[in-house]
């Protein structure tokens, strides 16, 4: 609710993270407001003008200490609720790896993103792969795996509308998943400082309907590119 009002939710798990945020806001907000109320109420109630002599309380008396102990019960309960929901979301996004319908390779370097899309055969590392710089094309409602790599330093593949973030580490290939649910064009940011060009590697993710995406793949695949550009060359020659 709160996060969605600031930024669209464009992945299958974005709303779960939005709900978790709202839940935490509620569960920490209520104790916070109660603590603030008591804090200010005491300051005003026990102002020097209104009091002759302060009370002598060690704090160990049961009649006072019980309030501190009782306050722990809701805090512990709230902690448990937050842990359950947080771990649940975490498990779903990061630990679990559902079956992929397609896979993209994301390569970070100082200071650009390279995206490798499978071509018409929907398989990576074949001759029809489509390589782009700073723009990633994906189809809506398709479950993707990403293979995240870095060529030099740490980077972070962050797609705020997906609520997704993952560090890229040189020497490793990190696999994760996302499923776009909202068509449109959104930001990809680097979220780990990577040198002086850290602020200069914006990329865009293009979420297309499956038919639009198929058309983009057909148009940009190295083979179809050769076919498509051949007539143009002929025209130019004439």
């Amino acid at each position, binding site marked *: 609710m*709160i996060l969605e009002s*600031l*930024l669209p939710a464009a992945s299958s798990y974005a709303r*779960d*993270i939005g709900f*978790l*945020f709202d839940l*935490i806001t509620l569960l*920490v907000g209520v*104790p*916070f407001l109660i*603590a*603030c109320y008591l*804090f200010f109420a*005491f*300051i005003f109630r*026990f*102002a020097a003008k209104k*009091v002759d002599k*302060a009370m*002598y*309380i*060690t*704090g*160990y008396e049961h009649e*006072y200490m019980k309030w*501190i102990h009782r306050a*722990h019960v809701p*805090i*512990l309960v709230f*902690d448990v609720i937050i842990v359950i*929901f*947080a*771990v649940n979301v*975490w498990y779903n*996004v*990061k*630990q679990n790896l559902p079956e992929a319908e397609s896979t993209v390779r994301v390569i970070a370097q100082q200071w650009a993103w390279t995206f490798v899309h499978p071509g018409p055969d929907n398989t990576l590392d074949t001759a029809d792969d489509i390589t782009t710089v700073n723009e990633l094309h994906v189809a809506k409602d398709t479950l993707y795996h990403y293979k995240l790599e870095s060529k*030099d*330093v740490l980077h972070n593949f*962050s797609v*705020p*509308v997906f609520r*997704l*973030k*993952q*560090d890229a*580490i040189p*020497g490793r290939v990190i696999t994760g998943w996302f499923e776009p649910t909202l068509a449109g064009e*959104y*930001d990809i*940011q680097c*979220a*780990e*400082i990577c*040198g*002086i*060009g*850290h*602020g200069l590697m914006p990329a865009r993710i293009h979420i297309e309907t499956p038919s639009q995406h198929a058309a983009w793949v057909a148009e940009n695949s190295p083979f179809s590119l050769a076919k498509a550009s051949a007539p143009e060359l002929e025209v130019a020659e004439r």
Partner: protein
Amino acid sequence: MAETIHVGHAEEHGHHDHHEMSFLEKYVFPLDHKMIAMQYMFTGMFMALIGGFFAYAFRMQLAFPGMDVPFWGVVTPADYNALVTSHGSVMIFWVAMPVLIAAFGNYLIPLMIGADDMVFPKINRLSYQIFLISAIIIIASFFVEGGAFGGAWTAYPPLSTKAQYSLTPIGSTMWITAVALEFVAFLLGGINFITTAMNSRAPGMKMWDIPMVVWMIVIASILFMLSVGPLLAGGIMMIFDQQLGTAFFDPDRGGDPILWQHLFWFFGHPEVYVVLLPAVGIVAEVMTVFSRKKLFAYKTVLYTAIGTGVLSFTVWAHHQFIAGIDPRMANVFTVTTLLISVPIAEMMFVYIATLYGGKITLTTPMLWALAFVFEFLIGGITGIFLGASGNDIYMHDTYFVLAHFHYTFYPIAIIGTYAGFTFWFPKMFGKMMNDGLGKLHFWLTIIPFNLIFLPLFVLGASGQHRRIYDYTNFPELAQPWQQDLRQLATISLVVMLGAQVIFFYNVIKSWMSGPPAGKNPWNSGTLEWTATSPPPHGNWPEGLPTCYRGPYEYSHPDHDKDYWPQNEPA
């Protein structure tokens, strides 16, 4: 002027000293714990001005991208990275640490436990000298070829270890060298604090009679000593990687960059509590005095501090949830992180309970102490958002994190320091501070502080990442309302920095011509208030005090005065 006062003093009590001290001996190479404390205090405050200036320069760039910033010029991407890196490093290692641990620790421990000095005065002097060298190195790194290190205060390799990536071949080594030297300085200081507090207490002062701030500095020193070893080793490995071509953190040659992150955060998270605990100790002293009340459940406060300290060693990987560690680990660290909310909440409750039934006077130090509790509460609860692993996938490395830790570190390093400084100023300089100016300074600091960082929570929740020098390159971050919030934060920062002039004016004016404070202007019960203001070398030339009771016997039913000093026989 100040020197005249001190010189006069030295003449007065000259017969207590072995010989007349020269200017160099007294002010440059002192052995007296109070003078070393002042060296730390004013070096820390000077560094705070530098760190604040860095913040001003890069916030101006964020609010008005590309502008020619007054006193700096155009902030280039390389400048921007160097500024944010140095701001973070300076504020934590060269402001919070020296002021909260070293300055207050040095000043207060001997005076509050009734000792004439630290047990190892020469180690104490060495500690400051090493610290000063480290501060000079970090500032000097701005003037070497390639400029200051720009890889953030966390210095993650390979960016920090390879010059072809960082483009700061000398600056990055100077950064890690300065940090490592600073650690050595505080290890030496910590040895002194712990030993002095355990061995030099006034006759009669039992464990539960030690003032809370002394306990807190001792616990903080222990936490520091237990956590800093791995990072000091890591720092030396980093220097080797940078200058000797070793490959501890180099993935191309079998090293692991994530190893550094573990070493860094194993220290980095306890470090938060290392600076937090002295601040909560200061707040305890101030709150009890100005509510004329015993600290609510003294032992509980102490146990929560120890509990928080122990737990703080088990939470470091919540800084690395999305760093590529085994995802199952995040579940463990989520649980330990949220568990910390239990002792910290208890500590905050106890502080609020201390106000209950008191007789509260809102003097300047009391306003700072109360502001600490309120602002730190905000810092505490926003930590829950980030400790919850599922939510951290989105929030990690956004301005939400930045706003959260400024809501913890600012109350600690700035509000806590002002609470302590305005409270003990009469003891340190023998003069009262101007309360009206003090309150003006308070409000002109605390309101802009909130106006800086509340907007940053919103920006962070809208997806704004950290350490990016110009958001106009990102369509989702270049919306007008976001730019308005950035400008609000920057203007508030300028107002807040400007308000510090009031503080320095008040300090100098009060120091020179404030009304004399006398020994105990606040009617406080702890031992430092039984010495003259300022205390001479040796603290109590007439003989060290004896302790008869706990530190917070305010409004005791069996006593006619509303305070019962620790040294007054029953």
